[in-house]
């Protein structure tokens, strides 16, 4: 066979195989999500049908309507949960980022005695499963009287996220050559200006990804929130999902509808911040 033709065919086949592989992988990842979205739009009968119905016969907004409806008719205080989630997640993310930036920068730039040990112990705190902490935290919070408050939840999530933000941001600042800040200082900046005008913008892609990470952790966290919140004061959306369970029944459709509402802001935020994640911008300032 003509070898050029052979190579062309081979390349096509490889490409097709590549796409097929990606398709399978993405389906595996996305299918549960799609199922959730699908279920939120169709009647409970169809959700529960055995064998499962793949192609929906009827799509409607009943579950959404019911969810936003009165308390008696299967409604839940979605808006309150949403606001709680948003306030708690955003505030804790911002604090975790600020602490992470201070800590990460210090780790990346200064000689700190026992740096390795501090680092490891930060990471070890993350090895403790959240649930194991819930009882001690519950008792502690009970004594302090901060159960079921925004403050309490923010505190937990900051503590949860700070080790990771420090670790991530340290890595990003390490990649920013220290000569950049030195050049800025020579160009007339104070140490503080050099950080904000040069090092921070250069590392901001990394900081943004640390931010997304922290936000999603708080936004999706369930185990601790389910122990430490109990009323509309502070219940977050993941905890709110449990409103759809009762002693004998599970309202799958409603749960899926709320889950979709939970996913949307997370997706939006990721897309918005992703713009900053284009790492290409940060390279090329120095000859490596």
């Amino acid at each position: 066979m003509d070898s050029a033709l052979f190579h062309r065919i081979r390349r096509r086949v490889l490409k097709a195989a590549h796409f097929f592989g990606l398709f399978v992988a993405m389906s595996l990842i996305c299918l549960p999500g799609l199922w959730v979205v699908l279920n939120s739009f169709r009647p409970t009968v169809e959700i529960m049908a055995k064998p499962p119905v793949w192609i929906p016969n009827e799509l409607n907004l009943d579950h959404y309507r019911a969810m936003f409806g009165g308390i008696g008719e299967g409604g839940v205080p979605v808006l309150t949960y949403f606001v709680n989630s948003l306030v708690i997640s955003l505030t804790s993310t911002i604090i975790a980022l600020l602490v992470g930036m201070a800590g990460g920068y210090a780790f990346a730039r200064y000689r700190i005695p026992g740096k390795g040990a501090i680092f490891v112990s930060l990471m070890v705190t993350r090895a403790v499963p959240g649930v194991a902490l819930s009882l001690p935290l519950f008792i502690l919070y009970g004594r302090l009287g901060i159960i079921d408050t925004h403050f309490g939840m923010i505190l937990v999530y900051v503590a949860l996220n700070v080790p990771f933000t420090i670790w991530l941001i340290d890595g990003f600042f390490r990649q920013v050559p220290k000569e950049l800040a030195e050049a800025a200082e020579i160009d007339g900046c104070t140490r503080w200006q050099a950080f904000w005008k040069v090092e921070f913008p250069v590392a901001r892609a990394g900081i943004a990804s640390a931010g997304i990470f922290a936000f999603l952790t708080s936004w999706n966290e369930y185990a601790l929130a389910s122990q430490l919140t109990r009323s509309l004061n502070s219940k977050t959306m993941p905890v709110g999902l449990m409103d759809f369970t009762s002693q004998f029944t599970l309202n799958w459709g409603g749960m899926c509808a709320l889950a979709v509402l939970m996913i949307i802001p997370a997706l939006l935020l990721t897309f918005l911040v992703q713009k900053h994640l284009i790492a290409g911008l940060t390279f090329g300032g120095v000859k490596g």
Partner: protein
Amino acid sequence: MADVVLKGVQKNFGALAVVHAIDLSIVHGEFVVLVGPSGCGKSTTLRMIAGLEDISGGTVQIGDRVVNDLPPRDRNISMVFQNYALYPHMTVRENLGFSLHIAKRPKDEIDKAVAAAAEILSLTPLLDRRPGQLSGGQRQRVAMGRAIVRHPDVFLFDEPLSNLDAKLRTQMRVEIKRLHQKVGTTIIYVTHDQVEAMTLADRIVIMRDGHIVQIGTPLDVFERPMNAFVATFIGSPPMNLLPATVHDGQLRLADETTMPVPPGISVRNGRHVQFGVRADNIMPDGHAMPPTAHMAHVDMPVTLTEPLGTETLLFGTLAGTEVQAKMLNPRPVKPGEVLRFGIALDKCHLFDAETGASLRA
């Protein structure tokens, strides 16, 4: 006017002393090159002048101010880094104007200064690109542009050319020299490349292990090295050094070859020395070496030749030591061929065998 004066400047990193009490005065407008092998403390010295490194002892004076405790921004210096350190998130224009922007200068003044610097360095067509979209040589020019925009008292260069390929390096070397002629600002330039040092400097400062070994004009240090280290460091190829002993006014090499002690050097009998001769001063007979009254002759087998076009380097073995000689108006030489070489003794040096110090008064 900005003279730069270092008095007893020291730097310790913890217990490790890397710069030992350096004294150096640089007059306004001078182009001074710090040169020395890797790790000898050149960058550290430069960074102390810049204010990027604390000074452990002594004083640094720029103009009539002692700047030891001033942060870099108050020293009115600019610096070009080895890796350029351009701000990757800014365009070339913003990079160039950054210092003026920080100084809160009016926008039209910044534009004018940036345009002028871009013109000098032929950066005008690149002003709207980001550093990531530039070639190595272009980045290098942006780094220089950023340094000249603000008309500092002193330019500091830390091996600015070492990331460029050989051809571009030669080209930028000329540009830097031209720039200095144009702006006339004091320049302190660090390199470990002796060719750069020789070609650029008004004065060369040769450093070794945190000490200054010799300061002088390029010709000074080339013709009158104070010790064997400078002799081998400056000049290409490095000066040949042959162990020898002095007997009755004669030098005796390791293989009993004898020749007169170079004129103008007095040395007592029995002293162990190193005999230093550059390739330019040892040439095969009849190869256009300017005739001098003080010639010595040796026979030496040639082991290897390196033709360079107008001249050829000859590698030979003399008294057990490899020696490089030069042949002008070259002819083919076969390895193994024994040639008779003439040595221009009046251009030769003697160094103490132990201390390496030059024995020329």
